[in-house]
C-alpha cells in the first residue's frame, strides 16, 4: 500500500521522491505509466462520465450543449415499448445462457476434459465458433435460416409446404438469435470449465474412488463443487455478454421484424447513435452501465472469499 514496509525509518514525502529519483525509479515511473493512463482516461473513463452528463440534455451532437431537459430522456426510455422489448430480449438471452448454454458447456467439458487426441480435436471444433467474428456467424446463420435456401427451406420443401422465413417471424425470430448465440459461445464456457476440471487434483478423485464413489458421485460430489468458482465466473460472463449482444443481431434481423428482436446495444445504436440523439443514446448507455455494474457487484458478493476472480 505504501512505499515503506518493515523497520526502515519513515522519510518525508520530499525525501522519498528524492531517493526514488536517485535510484532511477522516478524516471521510469514518469516515462512508463502516463501513456497507458492517459489513453485509458481519454477513451474509457471520460466517455463514461460524459455519458452520465449528456444523458440530461437534448443534443444532436453539434453546437452548444445547452438544452438541459432533466430526466426526460430517462422518462422517454422508461415508456418506450421497443426498449422494454430489448430488455426482455436481453433477459431471455441471459436465461438461455444460464439454463441451456452453461449446462451444455458443462456436460461437454465433463465428457472431453481428459487429455486425449480425440478430445483435443473435439475441443478445437467446439471452440471454433467463438473465434469466428460475430458478423460472419450472423451472416452464415442468416443463410441457414433463409426460407428460400437453408434448413427451413429444405424442411419446407420436404414437407411440401410454403417456405418459412423464421427471421421475419415475430414469434420465432428471437429464438433463432438465441440459437446462434448459444452456437457461438458454448465453446467459450466449455473451455473455462475444462481448464477448471483439469486443475482438480487427481488424488482427490482417486481417494473418492477408493471410498467407493461411482462415476456420477465423483462428478457431483468432487468435480462440480471444486469447479464452482468457474461456473460462477462463467455465469457472470454469460450475463455481461448477453447484455452487450449486438454484432450477431445486425446481420440476422437488424432488430426486426417490427423492432421485436433488439438487444439493449442494438437499441442504443438504432435510436441513439444512428439518429444522433446524443442525449438519448447516452441515457441508454448509462442504463446499460448500471446493469453491468449491478451484475459485477452481485458477482463479487456471490464469489466472496475468492478474492474476486475478476
Amino acid at each position: 500500500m505504501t512505499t515503506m514496509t518493515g523497520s526502515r525509518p519513515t522519510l518525508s514525502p520530499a525525501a522519498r521522491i528524492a531517493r526514488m529519483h536517485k535510484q532511477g525509479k522516478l524516471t521510469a515511473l514518469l516515462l512508463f505509466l502516463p501513456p497507458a493512463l492517459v489513453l485509458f482516461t481519454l477513451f474509457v473513463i471520460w466517455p463514461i462520465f460524459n455519458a452520465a452528463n449528456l444523458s440530461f440534455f437534448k443534443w444532436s451532437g453539434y453546437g452548444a450543449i445547452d438544452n438541459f431537459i432533466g430526466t426526460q430522456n430517462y422518462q422517454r426510455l422508461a415508456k418506450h415499448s421497443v426498449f422494454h422489448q430489448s430488455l426482455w430480449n436481453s433477459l431471455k438471452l441471459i436465461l438461455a445462457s444460464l439454463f441451456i448454454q452453461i449446462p451444455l458447456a458443462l456436460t461437454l467439458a465433463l465428457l472431453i476434459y481428459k487429455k486425449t487426441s480425440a478430445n483435443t480435436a473435439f475441443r478445437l471444433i467446439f471452440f471454433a465458433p467463438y473465434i469466428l467474428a460475430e458478423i460472419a456467424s450472423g451472416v452464415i446463420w442468416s443463410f441457414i435460416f433463409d426460407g428460400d435456401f437453408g434448413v427451413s427451406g429444405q424442411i419446407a420443401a420436404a414437407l411440401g409446404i410454403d417456405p418459412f422465413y423464421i427471421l421475419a417471424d415475430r414469434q420465432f425470430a428471437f429464438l433463432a438469435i438465441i440459437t446462434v448465440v448459444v452456437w457461438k459461445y458454448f465453446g467459450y464456457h466449455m473451455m473455462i470449465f475444462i481448464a477448471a476440471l483439469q486443475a482438480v487434483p487427481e488424488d482427490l478423485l482417486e481417494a473418492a474412488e477408493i471410498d467407493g464413489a461411482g462415476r456420477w458421485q465423483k462428478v457431483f460430489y468432487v468435480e462440480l463443487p471444486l469447479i464452482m468458482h468457474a461456473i460462477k465466473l462463467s455465469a457472470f460472463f454469460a450475463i455481461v455478454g448477453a447484455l452487450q449482444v449486438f454484432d450477431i443481431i445486425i446481420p440476422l434481423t437488424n432488430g426486426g421484424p417490427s423492432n421485436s428482436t433488439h438487444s439493449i446495444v442494438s437499441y442504443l445504436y438504432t435510436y441513439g447513435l444512428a439518429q444522433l440523439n446524443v442525449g438519448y443514446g447516452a441515457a441508454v448507455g448509462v442504463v446499460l452501465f448500471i446493469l453491468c455494474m449491478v451484475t459485477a457487484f452481485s458477482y463479487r458478493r456471490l464469489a466472496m472469499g475468492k478474492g474476486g476472480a475478476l
Partner: protein
Amino acid sequence: MNRPGFFLALVRAAVLSIVAALVIVPLIATFLGGFKSVGELRASPFGLPPVWRVETYTEILGGSVFWGYIQNSLIISFSAVFLTLMLASMAAYIFAQIRFFGSKYIQAYLLLGLMFPFATAIVPLFLQIRDFGLLDNPLGVILPQTAFSMAFAIVLLRSFFQQLPKELFEAAYVDGCGYIGFFFRFTLPLSTPILATVGTFVFVQSWNNYLLPLVVINDSAGYTWPLGIMRYRGEFMVEWNRILAFVSLTILPALIFFTFTQKYIVAGLTRGSVKG
C-alpha cells in the same frame, strides 16, 4: 468393457458427434456454397456442388475491394496489438517492480475498465473521436481499442512480471542496469509467453470488432472486413453464393491462424478463472 460402460461410451460418442456436426455443418455449407450457382444452392444448400465453380472465388480474389478490407483490418489489428503490448507492459512493469504511493489506487482505477463493455459509452466515445478529428482515420479505431484492452492486459502482464525472479533485477542493478534498461533487456525478452497470450487475445478482439469501425469509419475505402461483409451483402442481396464465398475467404485465414494460436487464446480466457 461391461455393458453399461459400453452404453455410456456410445451415448458419449453420439452427443459429441451431434454437437460437432452442428458446429461444422454451417461452416462447411458456407465454404461449399461459394462453389455453387444460386440455383444449385437453392436446390441443395448443404450438399457437395455438382460442378466445382471457382469463378465466384477467383472474382473476389482478383478484385481490389477484398484485399482493401483485409489490409485495413490488418493495419488496425496489428497496431492495436503493438500499442497495447507496449503501453500495458510498461505500466504493468511499474506496478510489478516499483512500490510507490498511490500504486494501489491507480491499479484500482484501471480495473474499472474490466467492468463494462465499450458499447455503454459508444455515443460519447464517438463524439470524443470526432472532436479529436479521428473519424475515418484508422487511429480512431486503434486508440479506443487499445484503451479498452488496457485493463485486461495490465492485469495479466503484471502478475506474470511479479513472478520473474527478484534476484535477476538485483544482479542487473548492481551491474549498473537501470529500471528502464532492465525492462527492455530482461523483462520483455523473458515474457514472450504472456505477451503472445495478450497479443493474440487483443488481435482476435480487434479483428472481429464491428461496432467501433461502424461508428468511426464512413468512407468505404477504410472499411475493415466485417464492415466489408455487410456492404457486400447489401450489394448482392440474394446472390448467396457470392456472399458465402466472400464470408469463406474472410474467415478461412482467421480460422487457420486461430487454430494455431488456440493455446494462447485459451490461456488468456482461462487465466484467473482457474486460480479463482
